[in-house]
């Protein structure tokens, strides 16, 4: 059968072909997204965000911001499974680039994540609600770190299901971060603290670094960079 006749990439401009592939991939990729993990993380996150309201009594800004931080962490733990793909080995050598496949997964989840985060923020009573923009940067950073970890595991080891290990690492990092980050960074301040603005400058930097790491790790390397090759870089 003249199969090449069905392959449009060679016959049409690359961008159009890529768009055609992406459109056709939406449905199958949506089915491969581990929605259960995101739902579990999201559900736990909403519960965490609602805790101050459910506990009754006056809600302090401290409780409000930390409830949202806990919510963001829960969702990020679920998102650590986003790049899990049991068919990774079977699809290891296909022409559609990994970065596009990963981007499609993220794009499919992003609208749901935005709606979820809005709901989480609204669950915190208004008087205790931290500035939405700042706390969203914190949540985005947690999400980006989870994705960076997963993308790194895929790039480094070709891992089919890196989610579990990445989620565990993220949880440990979240527990240790308040103890190990330099005190001048003051990442975990509360609204009203004079260091709040500076802290969110640092959060923004962290977010940029995490997004850069995601972008770098999503690209499949054409060359291996190991200590051995770096010591003697000549390639025959």
């Amino acid at each position, binding site marked *: *059968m003249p199969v090449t006749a*069905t392959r449009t990439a060679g016959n049409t401009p690359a961008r159009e072909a890529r768009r055609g592939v992406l459109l056709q991939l939406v449905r199958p990729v949506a089915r491969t997204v581990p929605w259960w993990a995101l739902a579990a993380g999201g559900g736990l996150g909403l519960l965490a965000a609602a805790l101050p309201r459910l506990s009754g009594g006056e809600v302090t800004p401290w409780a409000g911001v930390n409830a949202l931080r806990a919510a963001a962490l829960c969702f990020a733990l679920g998102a650590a499974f986003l790049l899990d793909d049991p068919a990774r*080995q079977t699809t*290891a050598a296909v022409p*559609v680039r990994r970065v596009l496949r990963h981007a499609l997964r993220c794009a499919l989840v992003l609208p749901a994540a935005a709606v979820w985060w809005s709901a989480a923020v609204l669950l915190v009573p208004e008087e205790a609600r931290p500035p939405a923009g700042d706390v969203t940067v914190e949540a985005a950073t947690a999400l980006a770190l989870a994705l960076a970890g997963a993308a790194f595991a895929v790039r480094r080891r*070709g891992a089919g299901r890196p989610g579990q290990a990445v989620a565990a690492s993220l949880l440990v990092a979240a527990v240790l971060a308040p103890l190990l980050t330099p005190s001048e960074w003051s990442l975990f301040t509360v609204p009203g603290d004079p260091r709040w603005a500076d802290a969110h400058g640092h959060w923004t930097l962290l977010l940029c670094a995490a997004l850069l790491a995601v972008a770098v790790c999503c690209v499949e390397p054409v060359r291996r960079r190991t200590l051995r090759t770096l010591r003697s870089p000549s390639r025959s």
Partner: protein
Amino acid sequence: MSPTVSASGLSLHYGATRALDDVSLRLTPGVTGLLGPNGAGKTTLLRVLATAVPADRGAFTVLGHDPSTARGRQEVRRRLGYLPQTPGFHPDFTAFEFVDYVAILKELTDRSARHREVRRVLDEVGLADVRGKRIRKLSGGMRQRVALAAALVGDPAFLVLDEPTVGLDPEQRMRFRELIATAGEGRTVLLSTHQTEDVAMLCHRVVVLAGGTVRFDGTPAELTARAAGRVWSSDGRDPGALAGWRTGLGTFRNVGDPPPGADLLEPTLEDGYLLTLDGAAAEVTA
């Protein structure tokens, strides 16, 4: 005949472990068998040639394209089918849906033509009757055939098969041999296997890999000829043999340097393979 794959000096290390060391080979249309003991570097070589992992050193081309550039790699992948050693699936997909998904990933975007192609490859691997069945409900042999169909979809010019017959019963293995033989008509197939009989039956050429290096590259007949005059029968295990085992007849089949006056036997491909491995063959005797 111009080679489909031309590789020179391929090397790859995992930490201190040398997985491939200066491997050079040329592959032409037909089925080439890749034999070697566990840890020989077969899977690594296949993953490198399938562009799933880049080499540390060396260069290779597939159908004239250089996969050390992003564009070249993409061109190679457009002409490539790859069946990994442990293929994974999305278990909730049906066989048809999974192969269709792989077909989209291979840039077959014309829906009706693609569906025809998916049906064709599923027919070819004998899964026409179960194409609507979820993969989680298929047997191991059927899943392996789904993976082969995924490798075959898009009619690739270069097919890389990593131990496709592992875990299959004799009937399924025979069926797979037929499929691979058919796949080898008009395209280049690189078949990694532990089964010397697969190579004897299917391959026009055989490469033996051990310790990450090529120990032999020639025809199956040439590999068999290496054992000519070096296989003999005896009543007990011959201590001078590199390898020896009791046959169903109660006598011992020995491979190595025969003693004078030994009762020589007709060599097989496996004998030639064992002699090629040398040290590894000695381990068989122990």
